[in-house]
């Protein structure tokens, strides 16, 4: 399969245990279901879909046909749950690309336009935001004293500066190591992604993340049909099952097609600089090579691909 190109080898043992456990569970449940409910018991989706959901392979192991079937199943479910048609595509990483992000903290003014744009782009539930803009005291780098709930007539406020945080797409990601079922991994373009259907919701990854950048979804987004972003991909912003962990994925649905992430597009100050780290002519490379950049909690060795810099 062409998909093997970027597929990371996964130990068979993990898969074996997870699957055999689920299979046994599946057989019991199937018997129970057959006996009790004729149809419609799965919130309206067909029993066949419900079963396919249940026995779905890990994203990296699906054959092209299985993947295609999974994508259309996701589309069918969205139609049924939200009453609107969406497209869900597979967006493998591009070759020769590793994404990086840099934020100019002397230009960020704390408007939170990025936060809103991200929520809309990624169809976020109402209590989750992938980006938090931290209000910090000038001259301080103490993240524990940061205020993410600031509310003012106008920003910036004198004596404060603003530090947007989101998933840092670490090159040495502790969350990936913490996942017991390998539902999260780093793709070849450096983006740490989640197979939401494989995630068992144990939240080990959240505990492992030093940046509090992962979120457990307790609820399904209660979005009206006209607020749903219909342009989705499997590994990014498609509808997620409830009870799994999600996070910023550098808008894979956009960036893997050459577009800018929604937060970059929304930022009116130009503080956000996104691009290909492997391209020596990219803007991100200019910043890394010419500005005094730093990363958060650098001493942990997580190697974020997310930098900050200031003009002054």
């Amino acid at each position, binding site marked *: 399969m062409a998909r093997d190109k970027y597929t990371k080898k996964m130990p068979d043992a993990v898969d074996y245990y997870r699957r055999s456990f689920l299979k046994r569970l599946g057989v019991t449940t199937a018997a129970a279901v057959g006996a009790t409910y004729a149809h419609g018991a799965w919130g309206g989706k067909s029993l066949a879909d419900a079963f396919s959901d249940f026995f779905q392979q890990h994203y990296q192991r699906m054959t092209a046909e299985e993947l295609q079937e999974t994508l259309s199943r996701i589309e069918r479910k969205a139609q049924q749950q939200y009453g609107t048609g969406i497209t869900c595509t597979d967006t493998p990483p591009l070759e020769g690309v590793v994404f990086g992000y840099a934020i100019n903290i002397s230009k960020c003014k704390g408007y*939170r336009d990025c936060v809103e744009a991200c929520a809309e782009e990624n169809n976020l539930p109402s209590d989750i935001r992938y980006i*938090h803009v931290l209000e910090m005291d000038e001259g301080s780098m103490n993240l*524990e004293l940061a205020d993410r709930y600031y509310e003012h007539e106008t920003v910036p406020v004198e004596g404060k500066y603003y530090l947007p945080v989101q998933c840092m797409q670490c090159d040495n990601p502790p969350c990936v190591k913490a996942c017991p079922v390998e539902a999260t991994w780093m793709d070849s373009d450096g983006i740490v992604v989640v197979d939401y259907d494989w995630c068992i919701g144990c939240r080990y990854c959240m505990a492992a993340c030093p940046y509090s950048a992962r979120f457990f979804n307790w609820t399904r987004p209660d979005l009206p049909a006209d607020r749903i972003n219909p342009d989705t991909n499997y590994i990014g912003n498609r509808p997620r099952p409830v009870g799994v962990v999600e996070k910023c994925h550098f808008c894979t649905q956009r960036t893997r097609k*050459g577009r800018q992430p929604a937060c970059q597009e929304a930022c009116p100050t130009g503080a956000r600089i996104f691009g290909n780290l492997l391209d020596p002519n990219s803007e991100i490379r200019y910043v890394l090579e*010419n500005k005094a950049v730093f990363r958060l909690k650098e001493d942990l060795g997580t190697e974020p691909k997310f930098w900050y810099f200031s003009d002054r």
Partner: protein
Amino acid sequence: MIITSCYITSIKNAESAEGGRIVLRLLSMIVAVATPCIIGAGESDPGQPGQRYPEAPEFTVQPRKDKPKFDDCSRCHEEGDTDPEPRRLKTRHVREIDHGGNRFWCLTCHDGDNIDYLRTSSNENVDFDESYLICGSCHADRQKDWYFGGHGKRVSGWQDERVILACTECHDPHKPAVKPRQPRPQPPVRIGLERQENHPPATSRAWNR
């Protein structure tokens, strides 16, 4: 080159110095002296303010001249009628300048002889769509960043042809400070959590916060 960099330094000094006025006098003298030497300089002479950077990744600037406010300045301004006397204007268009501490007059940037154009400190005529050359004569650092993508904003995809915003898209040249603005709403508090008191005293123990 030396003269122009000293021009910039004097601006910076004028900022902090008490005797800003005197420095300004000096400044205009320097400009007057400097101008003739600069005219001959090549367009891409490295180190020159208002310079172009041929080695910067290629770009196009999102045009601004199609906006109605640029309609035909010569409708009212005839050739030779420009009044070079610095004063407070009575027009309906730009009346005053809040840029660089009241030290500029319109003709610092506009070309008095041809009102449809701007003019750099090195006396180059530039189009309204090339205003970054004007800004660069005083803000060389920012301008360089802008050329290479460290300042300003790219409005095209990261892989597409590079389209970037003009300086004046974000900074009104007559009042360039970025104005404070209302932020978007606060983020929601996670289900099951309560919002903590902001800014606990730094002395409090971690477990008391």
